[in-house]
Structures are given as C-alpha cells and as structure tokens.
C-alpha cells in the first residue's frame, strides 16, 4: 500500500507522533551527525543529506547504558520509562543492521532484555537513499538503497512530497488518514529508486597494486590473475587466514575505534562499575583496542594490530556468517568514509578474493 505525503504536511504528522513516541531523526549539530530525539519537527533533517556519522544502533544499544544503580547501599535495576522509539529517516543499511543485531540479541539462547524491550516497542520509518555516497556499497552485500526488509514504512523523496510505502501494521497506523498515492506517483517513486541503485559506485573497486607494493615480493603472473576466484568470501578469508595477506592490509591501520564504533552492526560491549557514581554501566567496546582482549592474567590473545584487524574483517565476513547465516556488513560505508587513514573494507575484500598466498 502506498500513501502520498506532501512535505508540507510532515511537520504536523511528526507532531502527532510525538504525543506517543520518542521521535528520533538525523539531527545536528552540525549536520545530521546522529539520530537523536527531536523536540520539534523542524529538527529532523531528512532532505539531501548523506547518512548520519553515528549509527542509529545507539538508540537500541546505547553507547553507555546504566544497568544498575546503587541506592541506599543496594544495587537496583534502572527502569526504562522512556516512550517507544520511532526512528524517522533511517536508511536501509541501518534497518538491515538492526535486523542482524536482532539475531545476536534475540536469536540465541540468551535474550538481551534491554535490546528486546526497546526493539519491540519501536517503529522504523525508512528513507530511500536517493543519493548514495561514494563510500556506499549496500548492493554488494545483498541489499539496496531501498531495501524495505525490517522497516515499518519506507519514504521515497519525490521533491514536494514523499511516497510512503506502508509495510507493517505499525506502519499502517502511523500513516492512517493520508491519501493513497496514485499509480503515476507510485511509478515515479519506483523510477527514482532504480535511479538510486544505478548511482551506486562500483561495489568492490580494484586497487591491488598498492597492496602488492608492500609485500616485498613480485606479484602473480598474468595467468594467475585469470584464475577464477571462489566467490564465497567466507571460504576465501578462511583459506588465507594464515597468509601474509593480513600483514599487508593492516599496515596503515592506526588501531582506533572509528570503524567499530560507527559500524551499525558492531555490538561488543564491556560492563564496568563506575564507583564514584555508584553505577554499573554497559559501554560499547571495540575489538580494535588492545585492551579489548586483554585478560586478567596479563595474557592477550590478540596482542598485535594484525590480529585485531584480521578479527574485525573475519567477524564481518566469516564468523557472523557462521553464527547468524548472514554477512555482518550492510555496506553503509561509515568505516570507509570516516577511517582516519582511508582503509577501505571494499578494497580489502576485493584483494582477498584475488590474493595469491605465497
């Protein structure tokens, strides 16, 4: 079912949502840095912006979340009394990421109650990426700029209006009372979706020479490179696990937490006691930090940057697949765009597919 939503009517609609929902949308400062709860409709930045820097997973797995609080000498659970979250303007890659995280937090024997509570109450109104960035590669990892899986409704920007595709019951409720879109309007929306997909950059670019440069060895022969590569990335990565592939790709990496913190599917956390404020807090953690795998004995099973980089790539493209039957990457491109040294995971995967172990 498609609805027609003139942009001039959106503020009114958001206002009505705000009565029952914590409406979260891309916000400043400066421009669409993160999804945050808006106080008034005009704060939602939906037009002509790339995806947020900070991923919306933070709405469901907060960067720092107080689990227990010391009250009169006893630790008590912190009750979450916030209204249900309505995420407005979330992109397909991020919706997909939330679905993947559902497999982590809800899929196994261990249900994460905090995630569960927030997710069940929430509604997701997606926004078709009409202008994918140079760093986007969702189409290379099984999605698209208008992937609607997991969303409750999906907006397509048609200039003066949004064409709303209502997907779930929740979505139906949110857009009740709007006129249906005409066949011509729907067709237009479909066309612009196709244009968006066509605008996607080549998924895995080829920049093999530069990585070969650091090997100190000569590259394979012409014949070698003609050989067709196994297309399962997971098998490929497993096959080169012990090779010097990793020492090459990790050289520029400075070991910061940008890629993992901005990744919409990274979900590692660390639970710490903040003694001074009497709180037990769950914080995001990053496998790129040396301290992440540091054990109490002093032993560190991933003591080098190489092993940490390998783990991150393997986790996205192999381990996640082993455990949850899907790639752990949604192609949002945040790690590509914001890496301080321009490490591009697309190049790494492409290189892995073509790499000749010596």
């Amino acid at each position, binding site marked *: 079912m498609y609805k027609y939503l003139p942009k001039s009517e959106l503020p009114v609609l958001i206002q009505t949502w705000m009565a029952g929902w914590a409406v979260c949308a891309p916000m400043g400062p400066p421009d669409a*840095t993160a999804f945050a709860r808006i106080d008034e409709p005009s704060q939602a930045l939906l037009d002509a912006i790339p995806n947020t820097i900070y991923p919306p997973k933070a709405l469901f797995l907060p960067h720092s979340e107080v689990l227990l609080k010391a009250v009169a000498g006893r630790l008590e659970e912190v009750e979450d009394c916030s209204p249900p979250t309505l995420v407005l303007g979330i992109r397909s890659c991020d919706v997909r990421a939330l679905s993947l995280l559902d497999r982590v937090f809800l899929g196994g024997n261990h249900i994460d109650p905090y995630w569960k509570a927030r997710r069940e109450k929430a509604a997701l109104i997606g926004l078709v990426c009409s202008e994918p960035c*140079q760093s986007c590669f969702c189409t290379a990892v099984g999605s698209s700029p208008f992937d609607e899986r997991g969303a409750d409704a999906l907006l397509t920007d048609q200039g003066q209006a949004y064409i709303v595709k209502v997907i779930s019951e929740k979505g139906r409720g949110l857009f009740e009372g709007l006129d249906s879109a005409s066949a011509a309007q729907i067709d237009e929306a479909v066309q612009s979706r196709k244009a968006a997909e066509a605008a996607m950059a080549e998924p895995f670019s080829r920049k093999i020479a530069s990585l070969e*440069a650091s090997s100190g060895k000569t590259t394979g022969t012409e014949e070698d490179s003609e050989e067709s590569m196994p297309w399962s990335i997971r098998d490929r990565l497993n096959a080169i696990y012990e090779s010097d592939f990793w020492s090459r790709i990790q050289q520029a990496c400075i070991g910061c937490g940008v890629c993992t913190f901005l990744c919409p599917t990274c979900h590692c956390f*660390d639970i710490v006691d903040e003694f001074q404020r009497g709180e037990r807090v769950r914080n*995001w953690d990053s496998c790129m930090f040396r301290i992440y795998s540091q054990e109490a004995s002093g032993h560190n099973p991933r003591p080098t940057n190489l092993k940490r980089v390998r783990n991150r790539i393997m986790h996205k493209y192999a381990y996640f697949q082993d455990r949850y039957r899907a790639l752990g990457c949604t192609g949002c491109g945040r790690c*590509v765009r914001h890496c301080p040294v*321009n490490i591009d995971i697309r190049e790494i995967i492409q290189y892995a597919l073509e790499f000749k172990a010596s």
Partner: protein
Amino acid sequence: MVNALNASLRKEASRILQENLVDVVIGFQAGSLPMTAQPAFVRRAGMAGILINSGFGATNLALYLTRRRHRSERIGLVCRGCESRAVRVLTGERQHVREALYLIGIPCKGIIDRRRIEAEAGPHVLSAEEIDAEVVVTTRSGEYRFLRSEVLHGACRQCRFPHPVGVDITVGELPRERADSLQEGGALSAAEAGTFIGKEPCGFESLTADERYAEFTRRAERCIRCYACRQACPMCYCTQCFVDSTTPRWTESTVGRAGAQAWHIMRAFHQTGRCVGCGACERACPMGIKMRALTDKLNRDMERSYGFVPGKEEIHEPPFAAFSMDDANRFGR
C-alpha cells in the same frame, strides 16, 4: 608541477630502496575516495610509482615510527614540516634511532580540510584536484573552485614551520617562507585568532573562564571515546594509555561528561612540550571535535616561558624529561 614533484619523490624512494638504505618507504598513495590519501608502505623499488604528494594526506606519517612493527625497521619517511618536527621530538625521546631513518622532505602547501569543502560543495564530491592555488571539486551538481588557502585545515593555516627540517634530502621546490604568524611574545594575532578554530566562536583565551568551560564542555560532549585522536598522534605512543588502565582506573570509560573531559584534558597535558601542532588529531576525529585549542595553549606557554617549540631544533633532552640537581626549583631536589 605536481607531477614533476611526484616524479622526483618516486625516483628518490626508488633509489633508497634499490640501494638498500631502507627497508620501507612510508608516504602517501591515492585514496579510495575523493579528497583522501592513504598511507603507503613501499618495500620494492618497482612499486615506488604509487607514491604521491597530496594535499589530502591527513595523517601525520611520523606516527608509524612508534608502532612496534616498525621499531626495528630502517624507514624512509616522506616528510612535510610537521612530520619532520615530529621525528625530531620522537628521536629526542629515544623512540627511534635517527640513523635508521632516511627523511625525504617535500614542500608542504598545507593540508586541505575535506570537511570544509564538503560544507560548501555538499557531501557528494566525485573528484577533487589541486591545481596551483586552487582546489577544483566536481560534484553531481556541478563544479566548485576553492582557493586553497581558504580550505586548509586550521592547523595548517596557523603553521609557522611548513618546511621539513633535518631531512636527508628535499625533493621539489619549497614554498616561499610563510611569515611567522605569531606576534612577538607568542600571542595570536587577531587575524589568526579568527581562523583559530574554524567557523566556531574562537579564541579560547579571550573568553572568560566560564565561557571557556562551557565551550569546552560543549565540544567534549560529542566525544565517543574512539581514541582516533590518540591513535593518529605521533606523540601518543605509550604502551599503556592512562585511559586503558583498569587497575587503577584513572577515568570513567562511560561516555559522558566526566570521562570525556578527563580524557581531553589529560591528553592535552601529556602533550606539553611535545605537540608539533600538526592537527592530525582533529582530522582523525569522526565527530569533528576541535581540541587543538588546548594543545595550542600549552605550546604557547612553552614558547613564552621557555622559548621552546617542539621539533624546531634538534633536542637531546625533552624539556619535561630534563632533570638537574642544580634545578632552581625545589621540585625534584
């Protein structure tokens, strides 16, 4: 002109690899996105062709000297002014042996701040080219031309020492000496204060203490504790950073006011007499936090009080590592 420079850079890199003077040459190669350049590690003379001189090289390459994996290597380092000064600080702090380094100095016209360009040209930049004094940017909606001097990173606008110092060779023509932008006594000129922290209200020192704290708080609040600033800094080479210490814990790791403020203040203090002002920390920050005002203040204090500018001269004893029984001050005696 840029191409001629690339050619001589590559030739020199190729030569020192061929003559086995170094194990690796660290420089920049073209990045995977417009307005980026990626650190390159060239180990074979035949591959020196990937090296480029780029105004988009946001990283301070001297940071790789302190990485454990490079400590025992003979490194050829492509150096701009800030990198060469960072090398001096690092060798002065015994973090690498100068004799194991071969420094290739290249002229520096300042690093282009891609966020500044994106703020004007929009986020969808398809290509960017440095043409003389201009940066020409193509987007889906058309072409934009920027004066290079107007889109430089804040640190580079303020840079007083763009020349590589203490290098083994310099390739290409060095730009005309930029006039010292600091006034006598080290105070910022009004014009400099204007560009001090980009578009934001600036000049920390001219603010009242309360205003300063409010501004600092506002900036620190956006910190996500990814430590990109630390990791991008050549001077942050501690085996264990104070924020990573769990016994005892010096700061909160929780994202919030207390932890973030402690982090930024402590980080700045640890830079006293060491920061070369390259601004790599700010360029690395994904959240666009500008904290150089803190290290700049400390640098000015160092210059005012001791006439010391990190990396300006060869040093054998870093000011805060110096110890003397004859010290006029009581501390340490």
